[in-house]
Protein backbone atom coordinates (compact mmCIF):
# COMPACT_ATOMS: atom_id res chain seq x y z
CA UNK A 1 0.00 0.00 0.00
CA UNK A 2 2.79 2.37 0.92
CA UNK A 3 4.45 1.51 -2.34
CA UNK A 4 1.35 2.47 -4.29
CA UNK A 5 1.06 5.79 -2.51
CA UNK A 6 4.72 6.42 -3.12
CA UNK A 7 4.29 5.58 -6.80
CA UNK A 8 1.38 7.98 -7.07
CA UNK A 9 3.42 10.67 -5.41
CA UNK A 10 6.27 10.17 -7.84
CA UNK A 11 4.21 9.46 -10.93
CA UNK A 12 5.71 12.30 -12.99
CA UNK A 13 9.25 11.24 -12.30
CA UNK A 14 8.42 7.65 -13.15
CA UNK A 15 6.73 8.71 -16.37
CA UNK A 16 9.77 10.78 -17.28
CA UNK A 17 12.08 7.84 -16.58
CA UNK A 18 9.87 5.55 -18.67
CA UNK A 19 9.80 8.03 -21.55
CA UNK A 20 13.57 8.38 -21.40
CA UNK A 21 14.01 4.64 -21.66
CA UNK A 22 11.45 4.39 -24.46
CA UNK A 23 13.28 7.08 -26.38
CA UNK A 24 16.62 5.38 -25.84
CA UNK A 25 15.13 2.06 -26.99
CA UNK A 26 13.82 3.73 -30.14
CA UNK A 27 17.19 5.25 -30.93
CA UNK A 28 19.11 2.08 -30.32
CA UNK A 29 16.94 -0.52 -32.02
CA UNK A 30 15.20 1.16 -34.96
CA UNK A 31 17.23 1.37 -38.09
CA UNK A 32 15.11 4.07 -39.71
CA UNK A 33 16.95 7.34 -39.25
CA UNK A 34 13.77 9.41 -38.90
CA UNK A 35 12.66 7.14 -36.09
CA UNK A 36 16.02 7.59 -34.44
CA UNK A 37 15.55 11.36 -34.54
CA UNK A 38 12.07 10.98 -33.10
CA UNK A 39 13.56 8.83 -30.37
CA UNK A 40 16.00 11.58 -29.51
CA UNK A 41 13.09 14.00 -29.34
CA UNK A 42 11.23 11.68 -26.98
CA UNK A 43 14.28 11.56 -24.73
CA UNK A 44 14.46 15.34 -24.75
CA UNK A 45 10.80 15.66 -23.88
CA UNK A 46 11.20 13.22 -21.03
CA UNK A 47 13.93 15.34 -19.54
CA UNK A 48 11.80 18.46 -19.91
CA UNK A 49 8.99 16.69 -18.08
CA UNK A 50 11.44 15.66 -15.41
CA UNK A 51 12.77 19.18 -14.94
CA UNK A 52 9.34 20.76 -14.84
CA UNK A 53 8.15 18.19 -12.30
CA UNK A 54 11.08 19.07 -10.07
CA UNK A 55 9.97 22.66 -10.11
CA UNK A 56 6.31 22.05 -9.37
CA UNK A 57 4.95 23.05 -5.98
CA UNK A 58 1.43 21.95 -5.19
CA UNK A 59 -0.92 24.90 -5.17
CA UNK A 60 1.72 27.13 -6.69
CA UNK A 61 0.88 29.48 -9.51
CA UNK A 62 2.97 30.39 -12.49
CA UNK A 63 5.82 32.68 -11.53
CA UNK A 64 4.39 35.96 -12.72
CA UNK A 65 4.04 38.40 -9.91
CA UNK A 66 0.77 40.26 -9.76
CA UNK A 67 -0.15 42.92 -7.27
CA UNK A 68 -2.33 41.72 -4.44
CA UNK A 69 -2.15 38.93 -1.94
CA UNK A 70 1.02 36.91 -1.47
CA UNK A 71 0.93 33.61 -3.32
CA UNK A 72 3.05 30.48 -3.54
CA UNK A 73 4.91 30.29 -6.80
CA UNK A 74 6.39 27.27 -8.47
CA UNK A 75 10.15 27.06 -8.78
CA UNK A 76 10.98 29.27 -11.77
CA UNK A 77 14.51 27.97 -12.40
CA UNK A 78 13.66 24.65 -14.09
CA UNK A 79 11.17 26.39 -16.37
CA UNK A 80 13.81 28.87 -17.40
CA UNK A 81 16.28 26.08 -18.09
CA UNK A 82 13.72 24.18 -20.14
CA UNK A 83 13.26 27.17 -22.44
CA UNK A 84 16.92 26.86 -23.32
CA UNK A 85 16.61 23.11 -23.64
CA UNK A 86 13.75 23.36 -26.12
CA UNK A 87 15.70 25.64 -28.41
CA UNK A 88 18.67 23.29 -28.31
CA UNK A 89 16.37 20.39 -29.18
CA UNK A 90 15.01 22.29 -32.18
CA UNK A 91 18.52 22.98 -33.45
CA UNK A 92 19.63 19.38 -33.18
CA UNK A 93 16.48 18.18 -34.91
CA UNK A 94 16.90 20.67 -37.75
CA UNK A 95 20.48 19.67 -38.35
CA UNK A 96 19.79 15.96 -38.22
CA UNK A 97 16.86 16.35 -40.63
CA UNK A 98 19.09 18.13 -43.10
CA UNK A 99 21.62 15.32 -42.82
CA UNK A 100 18.85 12.81 -43.45
CA UNK A 101 17.83 14.69 -46.59
CA UNK A 102 21.38 14.45 -47.87
CA UNK A 103 21.69 10.78 -46.94
CA UNK A 104 18.49 10.05 -48.79
CA UNK A 105 19.86 11.85 -51.79
CA UNK A 106 23.14 9.93 -51.84
CA UNK A 107 21.97 6.45 -50.86
CA UNK A 108 18.32 6.51 -51.88
CA UNK A 109 17.18 5.25 -48.50
CA UNK A 110 16.98 6.42 -44.92
CA UNK A 111 17.30 3.01 -43.38
CA UNK A 112 20.56 2.52 -41.55
CA UNK A 113 20.70 -1.22 -42.24
CA UNK A 114 20.12 -0.73 -45.94
CA UNK A 115 22.78 1.96 -46.05
CA UNK A 116 25.23 -0.35 -44.37
CA UNK A 117 24.33 -3.10 -46.83
CA UNK A 118 24.92 -0.73 -49.75
CA UNK A 119 28.29 0.21 -48.35
CA UNK A 120 29.16 -3.41 -47.70
CA UNK A 121 28.64 -4.31 -51.34
CA UNK A 122 30.79 -1.46 -52.46
CA UNK A 123 33.90 -2.28 -50.51
Amino acid at each position, binding site marked *: MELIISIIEHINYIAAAALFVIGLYTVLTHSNLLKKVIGINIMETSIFLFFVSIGYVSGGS*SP*IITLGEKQIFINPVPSALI*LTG*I*VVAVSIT*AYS*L*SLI*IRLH*ETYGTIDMDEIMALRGEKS
Partner: protein
Amino acid sequence: MDDLIVKTITRLIIPFIQLYGIFIILHGHLSPGGGFSGGAILGASIVLYSLSFGLEKASKKLSHETSSIIETAGILWYIVLGLVGIFMRGFFLTNRGAGFPMGEAGGVISSGMIALITLGIGAKVASTMITLFHTIIKED
Protein backbone atom coordinates in the same frame (compact mmCIF):
# COMPACT_ATOMS: atom_id res chain seq x y z
CA MET B 1 -0.61 24.25 -53.94
CA ASP B 2 -2.87 26.53 -55.87
CA ASP B 3 -6.09 26.88 -53.97
CA LEU B 4 -8.14 30.05 -53.76
CA ILE B 5 -9.62 29.33 -50.35
CA VAL B 6 -6.24 28.61 -48.79
CA LYS B 7 -4.72 31.70 -50.33
CA THR B 8 -7.52 34.00 -49.22
CA ILE B 9 -7.63 32.66 -45.70
CA THR B 10 -3.85 32.89 -45.46
CA ARG B 11 -3.92 36.48 -46.59
CA LEU B 12 -6.63 37.25 -44.05
CA ILE B 13 -5.06 35.50 -41.12
CA ILE B 14 -1.39 36.42 -41.48
CA PRO B 15 -1.67 39.99 -40.10
CA PHE B 16 -3.34 38.64 -36.97
CA ILE B 17 -0.68 35.99 -36.46
CA GLN B 18 2.03 38.58 -36.87
CA LEU B 19 0.29 41.02 -34.54
CA TYR B 20 0.02 38.27 -31.94
CA GLY B 21 3.68 37.41 -32.35
CA ILE B 22 4.71 41.02 -31.90
CA PHE B 23 2.45 41.30 -28.86
CA ILE B 24 4.10 38.24 -27.30
CA ILE B 25 7.56 39.65 -27.95
CA LEU B 26 6.78 43.11 -26.59
CA HIS B 27 5.14 41.68 -23.48
CA GLY B 28 7.90 39.18 -22.87
CA HIS B 29 8.78 40.63 -19.49
CA LEU B 30 5.15 40.96 -18.35
CA SER B 31 3.33 37.83 -19.39
CA PRO B 32 4.12 34.27 -20.42
CA GLY B 33 6.03 34.22 -23.66
CA GLY B 34 9.07 36.15 -24.68
CA GLY B 35 11.51 36.30 -27.52
CA PHE B 36 11.55 32.63 -28.39
CA SER B 37 7.84 31.96 -28.41
CA GLY B 38 7.00 35.28 -30.08
CA GLY B 39 9.69 34.78 -32.67
CA ALA B 40 8.43 31.29 -33.42
CA ILE B 41 4.91 32.68 -33.96
CA LEU B 42 6.21 35.40 -36.26
CA GLY B 43 8.21 32.82 -38.15
CA ALA B 44 5.18 30.57 -38.42
CA SER B 45 3.30 33.31 -40.24
CA ILE B 46 5.88 33.39 -43.02
CA VAL B 47 6.05 29.60 -43.04
CA LEU B 48 2.29 29.60 -43.61
CA TYR B 49 2.73 32.15 -46.39
CA SER B 50 5.35 30.06 -48.16
CA LEU B 51 3.20 26.95 -47.79
CA SER B 52 0.27 28.50 -49.57
CA PHE B 53 2.00 30.82 -52.04
CA GLY B 54 5.11 28.85 -52.81
CA LEU B 55 8.75 29.33 -52.04
CA GLU B 56 9.44 31.83 -54.82
CA LYS B 57 7.08 34.47 -53.52
CA ALA B 58 8.02 33.89 -49.92
CA SER B 59 11.72 34.33 -50.63
CA LYS B 60 10.86 37.73 -52.08
CA LYS B 61 9.22 38.69 -48.79
CA LEU B 62 12.31 37.78 -46.84
CA SER B 63 15.35 37.10 -48.95
CA HIS B 64 18.26 35.00 -47.82
CA GLU B 65 20.44 38.10 -47.61
CA THR B 66 18.11 39.91 -45.27
CA SER B 67 17.60 36.96 -43.00
CA SER B 68 21.32 36.33 -42.67
CA ILE B 69 21.77 40.00 -41.75
CA ILE B 70 19.02 39.72 -39.13
CA GLU B 71 20.61 36.63 -37.62
CA THR B 72 24.00 38.25 -37.34
CA ALA B 73 22.50 41.47 -36.04
CA GLY B 74 20.51 39.61 -33.40
CA ILE B 75 23.62 38.19 -31.79
CA LEU B 76 25.62 41.40 -32.22
CA TRP B 77 22.80 43.34 -30.57
CA TYR B 78 22.93 40.97 -27.63
CA ILE B 79 26.70 41.34 -27.36
CA VAL B 80 26.50 45.14 -27.55
CA LEU B 81 23.88 45.23 -24.80
CA GLY B 82 26.15 43.06 -22.70
CA LEU B 83 29.17 45.24 -23.38
CA VAL B 84 27.27 48.29 -22.09
CA GLY B 85 27.54 46.61 -18.72
CA ILE B 86 31.32 46.42 -18.98
CA PHE B 87 31.69 50.02 -20.09
CA MET B 88 29.55 51.22 -17.22
CA ARG B 89 32.15 49.68 -14.89
CA GLY B 90 30.13 46.60 -14.18
CA PHE B 91 30.27 43.12 -15.62
CA PHE B 92 29.15 41.61 -18.89
CA LEU B 93 25.34 41.56 -19.13
CA THR B 94 24.57 43.82 -16.18
CA ASN B 95 21.07 45.20 -16.16
CA ARG B 96 20.25 47.67 -13.42
CA GLY B 97 23.84 48.43 -12.56
CA ALA B 98 24.56 49.47 -16.13
CA GLY B 99 22.02 52.25 -16.07
CA PHE B 100 19.47 50.87 -18.49
CA PRO B 101 16.18 52.78 -18.19
CA MET B 102 14.24 50.64 -15.78
CA GLY B 103 10.85 52.28 -16.11
CA GLU B 104 7.86 51.45 -13.99
CA ALA B 105 7.32 47.80 -13.05
CA GLY B 106 4.44 46.47 -15.13
CA GLY B 107 4.74 48.91 -18.02
CA VAL B 108 5.57 47.84 -21.54
CA ILE B 109 8.64 50.09 -21.58
CA SER B 110 10.36 48.88 -18.46
CA SER B 111 12.85 46.39 -17.08
CA GLY B 112 15.77 47.82 -19.03
CA MET B 113 17.88 45.21 -20.76
CA ILE B 114 15.26 42.46 -20.56
CA ALA B 115 12.87 44.07 -23.02
CA LEU B 116 15.67 45.05 -25.39
CA ILE B 117 17.16 41.56 -25.42
CA THR B 118 13.72 40.05 -25.94
CA LEU B 119 13.24 42.25 -29.02
CA GLY B 120 16.54 41.11 -30.51
CA ILE B 121 15.86 37.46 -29.77
CA GLY B 122 12.39 37.71 -31.27
CA ALA B 123 13.69 39.05 -34.58
CA LYS B 124 16.47 36.49 -34.66
CA VAL B 125 14.29 33.48 -33.85
CA ALA B 126 11.72 34.50 -36.46
CA SER B 127 14.32 34.76 -39.18
CA THR B 128 15.97 31.52 -38.03
CA MET B 129 12.72 29.59 -38.27
CA ILE B 130 12.10 30.95 -41.75
CA THR B 131 15.60 30.26 -42.99
CA LEU B 132 15.57 26.72 -41.64
CA PHE B 133 12.24 26.04 -43.27
CA HIS B 134 13.20 27.56 -46.60
CA THR B 135 16.57 25.83 -46.74
CA ILE B 136 15.07 22.46 -45.99
CA ILE B 137 12.16 22.66 -48.43
CA LYS B 138 14.38 24.04 -51.16
CA GLU B 139 15.76 20.53 -51.51
CA ASP B 140 12.63 19.08 -53.11
